[in-house]
């Protein structure tokens, strides 16, 4: 499934890597597998976008595992924001990117120390990413 990677690894080149995880790929993964994939991405400094968000149970585990991995000067945790899709038919750029429409909530997750704000309004999530 689609996984868009903007220029190379995020190792100081100034670029930000975005991992776009499609619903089909998520559907075939176990809960812990999804959480591992998200946190591995975020800990590499990437922004992870899930086409279909997590279940409440998975969200709860994501918080729990995030907490156990926080370590001073290394990993501060995550910023997370969801975008509840409405039933309306107008497609967003992400819908087009994903090549489909979905009523599931889009979820954006990023490293807390690099994302200053994840701002959300009616039809937009914007991440202000600070390049350290």
């Amino acid at each position, binding site marked *: 499934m689609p996984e868009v990677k903007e220029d190379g690894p995020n190792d100081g080149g100034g670029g930000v890597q975005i991992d776009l995880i499609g619903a089909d790929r998520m559907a075939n993964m176990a809960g812990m597998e999804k959480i591992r994939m998200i946190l591995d991405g975020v800990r590499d400094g990437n922004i992870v976008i899930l086409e279909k968000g997590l279940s409440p*149970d998975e969200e*709860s585990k994501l918080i729990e595992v995030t*907490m*156990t991995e926080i370590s001073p000067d290394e990993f501060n945790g995550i910023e*997370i924001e969801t975008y509840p899709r409405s039933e309306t038919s107008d497609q967003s750029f992400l819908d087009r990117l994903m090549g489909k429409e979905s009523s599931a909530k889009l979820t954006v997750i990023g490293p807390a120390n690099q994302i200053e704000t994840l701002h959300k309004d009616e039809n937009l999530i914007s991440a202000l990413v600070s390049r350290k």
Partner: protein
Amino acid sequence: MGLFTELKDSISRVTDKLFSAQEPKRIGIYGPPNAGKTTLANRIARDWTGDAVGPESHIPHETRRARRKENVEIERNGKKVTIDIVDTPGVTTKVDYEEFLDHDMEKEDAVRRSREATEGVAEAMHWLREDVDGVIYVLDSSTDPFTQVNTMLIGIIESQDLPVLILANKTDLEESSVQRIRNAFPQHETIPLSALEGDNMDEVYAKIAEYFG
């Protein structure tokens, strides 16, 4: 307040309890850091048992280990409920020890505080999935309730089918808006209070007895 007369009855109630098979309900007090969870837990414990649960502080993540007060008997309007109140650490998705340095803390203490906080939150999340019979969700009504943590937590609680009471705390503050919380979570009952001043505790106790009884 009639609490003392009720306390006097406690001896006879102990005898009653020997014959009652009902286990106390575990009620988790959840919510974001600094909402006033411990202040509320202490007030409930003091009103009904005479002693406190734990320290309160304006510095976030004061509570880093969940604290339990067992067998708190609350009686209102003829309804009686015995609960174990569990005061949990404020839930968050990030903890940065450097935040604590602003509160005049040495690095070593700040790092320890953040490590304890993360362990406590992990534990509280685990309990929420396994070990809680009902939730009191405390919000600071002077701040924006539309946060991702609140949305996720309420969603998690709903998915477990747990009874939940939303408390709009700090109504004594000028910026307090209870309506903003009602708008954020219209599917649940919101009760205003000031845990610090003790305002509207009667309604809080009545609702606890009604929801968790």
